[in-house]
Every structure is written in structure tokens, then in C-alpha cells.
């Protein structure tokens, strides 16, 4: 991998392109994510971190790892903004992942409210990473609202179904000049690899690791898959796969002048 190939979000550089999601968490999961998957960003659900519990999640996060608090539990922009501010007060830094859901069954993001919250929080100096349903118009609005990256879902959260929204994510990658981080639904390393080949900037996953039989092994599989996909993308995958390859006799050889 080129050593200068960095993921840059909000002016901060990361060499890892794996981000640990927050849905199911445990100490062993965080350990495997950092050690074996190489994660440098770990998502944190503020609603669960805001606890008196003996074992506070914040204590589990190793030094040097960037915290990405999320606003899960928010049902509209106003609630998301309040949770983000609380995260900052709790000492979670300036990064925030906006999650706004008005649906308790599928937990699909509300794009309209997400745009509103992004604008407010970006203006307050947050580095905003909005979780969104992959829609080009929304993505453009998020760029204008000041997002630092966009996080389209690959398939319903927790479903492990992979790139169900593949074609729409490809449009975002092609049209949006911010990092496109694939969030939700990535169930296998091969799916993560495919998303990286398409040009995704990073992969966020949680359930795929949390529910694996051997956590550290699955974490390292994700690391390798993401690196392989990234290398394939950088190597110019598109050309390699063009059907028929290059003809030895040019098809336009009959043309003169």
C-alpha cells in the first residue's frame, strides 16, 4: 500500500480504513477491532456511554483511537443536535456521526432531518459524518451543509446482507468529492472488499465482527479484505475488467487522417 494513501476526515489523517460501529459492543470486540482490524476510529453510542456504570465504555477505548460518538436514539434534528452537544460535554471530541431514525423496526435513517442536523452541527465546529440512505440529492445537500464525509448504508443495519444499494453507492462515489464511508449491512470481508474496489473511502462494521465465531480472526480478515479492495481500486481496476481487453489490431485502423 502506498504510504501516502491516507483517509482524511476533518483534516485528520488515518491510515486505517476500517471503522468499528457501535451496535453491539464488548471489550473483546474493541480489542479485536483495534489490534486485529487496525481500527483507528471507534463509534460510541452516547446514549449508552452516558452511564454511571462501573464499566463505562469510555474506559474501554484505547489511547490514540479517535472516538466517533453517534446520535442514536434521536428521532429528529433537534434531538440529534442535543445528543451531539452532550457528547462534546462528555469529552468525546469534535467528531460526530449523525443517526436519526423515525423507525424502530428497520432503523433506516431520515435523510431530511439529517441534512438539518448536519448544517447546525457543522456550523458549531463539529466534524460531521452523517449516516444516510444513499441518495444523490441528499448527498449534495449534505456536502453543502458542511459534512466531512458521508455514510450511506449498504443494506439494513444488522442484516449482514452486503451491498444491496450497490448501484446507488457507486453514483455517490462517482459524484461526491467527500470520503464515502460504507455503513451498515456489511456482513462479510468479501463485501467490504467489493465496496473498497468500487472506491469507497472506508468501511464501518460491527455486527459482522460481533457475531463471528472467532473475533480476532474475523477482524484480521476484514483488515486484509479492506486493504485488498483499496489496492485494487488504486491499481485502476476498471480498466483491467473491460471486456475483450485491448485488441491487437486496432478496430479503427482503417481510418486515415
Amino acid at each position, binding site marked *: 500500500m502506498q504510504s501516502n494513501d491516507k483517509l482524511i476526515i476533518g483534516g485528520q489523517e488515518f491510515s486505517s480504513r476500517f471503522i468499528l460501529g457501535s451496535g453491539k459492543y464488548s471489550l473483546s470486540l474493541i480489542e479485536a477491532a483495534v489490534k486485529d482490524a487496525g481500527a483507528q476510529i471507534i463509534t460510541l453510542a452516547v446514549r449508552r456511554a452516558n452511564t454511571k*456504570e*462501573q464499566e463505562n465504555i469510555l474506559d474501554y477505548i484505547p489511547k490514540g483511537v479517535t472516538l466517533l460518538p453517534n446520535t442514536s436514539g434521536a428521532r429528529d434534528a433537534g434531538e440529534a443536535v442535543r445528543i451531539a452537544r452532550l457528547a462534546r460535554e462528555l469529552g468525546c471530541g469534535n467528531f460526530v456521526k449523525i443517526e436519526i431514525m423515525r423507525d424502530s423496526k428497520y432503523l433506516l435513517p431520515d435523510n431530511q432531518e439529517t441534512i438539518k442536523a448536519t448544517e447546525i452541527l457543522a456550523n458549531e465546529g463539529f466534524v460531521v459524518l452523517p449516516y444516510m440512505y444513499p441518495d444523490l440529492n441528499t448527498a449534495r445537500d449534505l456536502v453543502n451543509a458542511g459534512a466531512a464525509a458521508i455514510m450511506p448504508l449498504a443494506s439494513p443495519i444488522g442484516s449482514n446482507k452486503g451491498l444491496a444499494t450497490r448501484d446507488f453507492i457507486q453514483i455517490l462515489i462517482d459524484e461526491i468529492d467527500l470520503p464515502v464511508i460504507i455503513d451498515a449491512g456489511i456482513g462479510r470481508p468479501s463485501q467490504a472488499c467489493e465496496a473498497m474496489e468500487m472506491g469507497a473511502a472506508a468501511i464501518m462494521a460491527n455486527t459482522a465482527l460481533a457475531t463471528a465465531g472467532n473475533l480476532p480472526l474475523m477482524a484480521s480478515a476484514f483488515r486484509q479484505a479492506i486493504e485488498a479492495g483499496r489496492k485494487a481500486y488504486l491499481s485502476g481496476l476498471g480498466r483491467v475488467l473491460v471486456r475483450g481487453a485491448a485488441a491487437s489490431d486496432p478496430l479503427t485502423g482503417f481510418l486515415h487522417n
Partner: protein
Amino acid sequence: MENKFLFDSDHLSEAVLKKKHLLETDPSCRKNHMEYLPGMEQIQSGICDQVISEMKSYDYSQYTAKDVMVALDHEICSLEDFKALLSPAAEPFLEQLARKARLETSRHFGNTVYLFTPLYIANYCENYCVYCGFNCYNHIRRMKLSMEQIEHEMKIIADSGMEEILILTGESRTQSDVAYIGEACKLARRFFRMVGLEIYPVNTDEYRYLHQCGADYVTVFQETYDADKYETIHLYGHKRVWPYRFDAQERALRGGMRGVGFSALLGLSDFRTDALASALHVYYLQRKYPHAEMSLSCPRLRPIINNEKINPMDVGEKQLCQVICAYRIFLPFVGITVSSRESEAFRNGIVKIAATKVSAGVSTGIGDHESKYRGKESDGTQGDEQFEINDSRSFQKMYEHISKEGLQPVLNDYLYV
């Protein structure tokens, strides 16, 4: 079988006994259970009709092993699949149900188990529900905690580490009015992250007020969805009005509550049709209020003070497990609570399959947390329990046991916003 519920306290006067016996034996003496009482809000909602029409057409005897296997094979559990999974034909497939349920639970909840504790603040009741220890004809020590006493109880519970509390009362609007419960909620907000309520059903504006006081979750047990059966065991009082109770969760959501809990008391009536109706109540209400969080409880009948004969009837642990697994497969996103009515062994097993929330450090009596949590000798001024609990593990013990099972105990997953 029915008469196991009925007994006469020696403390009742002849006139009272006469009225009690009339209520028990002469249906014409009872109020119409489908008619609203003055002051009860009536909302326009089609949910009840949907649930009841499905329930009435459910003939679980027609489902076969083949239907169950087909249901287990489906990625998405349809209503027909759910009906098959609840039927007697699914009993031999309990292990397969449990495996499928566990997969769904881990997808949606990972390995987390939420802990909470109930706090009964009053046990006065104006209803005659024949199976309940708080019923107005049962001679028990009645009590209503003062705000100072509530604060004292809450402090003891909060000191144990608990962050979520469920406030309960007997169903007496005169003894425990909405203002009293509201004050208790305000106090609870100071000690706990999450405040839930399990009180008599109230109107939308009253739910809104209680939400403003700090409560954000309302649980109402319908007891049984069979209104005819309901009529024969809820003989007197406002609780007798079946449809007002049915719409309580919807009123709570309209009043701004974040989430609502549901349940039938399994064993009161046909448990399979009651389980079907409970799940459909959740299912249809979720479609109408998609933002709301929903949960199902799975209580079975338990013995009460002065009546040891009450039992869960035909709902054995295997049947209860089947119901819980079917709930999980049909409603994978819904929280499932298993209370201390069940044994330690059952609760240890079911959290690995489908339950996502368990109570700990439980007392169903009034004002006795100091004696139960700190071993202080009881001074005899406590109020009696609603029912006998089965699993008396303390919060600390429950926390340890869950951790030892490889699960993650969670005390808070909630923000009041």
C-alpha cells in the same frame, strides 16, 4: 378450575361479602365491560379491530409440522408463519425455534441484556381482579409511600448501581392520583437515567403530563385479549373496562412517550391466542407509530398472598419458551422482558435465546427496599406484595451471572431528549 381464584377473607363484613358473592355469581350485577366510564377518553383507532379479527380466526389446531418447518425456513416470518410457530405443532421443534430466535436476537441486540428494577410506591386498588394480590377484597397491608419515603427507596436502589426504574402502583385513582405519580417521576429523574411506568391506564393529556415529569416508557398488561374471559375475572372497578385498557399504549404514544410495553398474563385464558393477540397489538401499533420503541413481557400467573393455589395452568416452561421464541422470530426488533416471576434457571437460559431485559433486586411489596437491599430489620410498616416472585437475585448477583454467561449486562441505553 376457575374457583381456585375465589376465596373470602375473614375480615370482610357480611354486607361486603354479599356484594362480593353477587359479583362472582351473578353476571347481571356487573357493569358492561365494553362500556367506557365517565372521564375515560375514547380515541379513534382501528388497531383493536385488526387484532381481534385475527385472533378470532386463529385455529392453532390446523397447523402441522410441515407448516412449522416452512415457517422456520423463511427468512422473514409472515403472520401465517408466526401462527404456525405458536401452535402445538411447533412444540417438538422447540430447539429449532430457539436457534432461530437466538440468531435474530444476536442480529438486533448482540449479546446485551438490560437490567432494571421495579418500585411499587402504593398498593391501594379499587378493582376486584380475582387473581391479583392487590384486589380490593384481599386483606393485605395497604400502603402508599410519601415523597420522602419514595426518595429514600430510590436512593437505596440507585446506590446499588441500577440506572433504570419502573414505577408501579395499584390501580387506584383516588389513592394514587396522576399528580402523585408525576411527583414520583420527577424524583426518579434525579436518581435514574430511565423512568418507566406501570400504572392504571390514563388519558392522553395525563400521559403527556407524566412524560413531562420524566417518564418515557409506559407498560400496560392487557391481562387477556379475550374480552369475554376478561369480563369473568375482572369483576369490579374501572379496570373492568376492556377497550379503554386496550388503547392505553396508543394514548401513551400520542402523549409523547418514547416507548410502550405490552403483555397478556399467560394462564388466564388460552395462552396461544393471547400470545398471538399480544404480538399483533405490537405489530399493528408499530406500523402506525414506526418511531416508537416497543417491548413484550411474558408473565405467567403466580401465587398471591392468601391464595397459594393460583398457578400458571397449562403454560409450562416449555410453552413459555415457545411463545418467547415465536415472539422473537416474528418481531425481531422488539424488546422482550422476563420478570422475576420466573426461576433463576429459566431466566439464565432465556436471556441466551431471546429475552433482552430482566429485572433484578425485585420486591413487589411497598417500602421494603432497605430491609431487602441492606438487611435492615423490617419494622412491620411495609405494604404487602402483589404476587410471589421466584427469582430473588440481587442486582449485583444478576450482573455477575449475566457476565459469567458471556453476555453483557447493560444498565443504560437511553437518553431523555
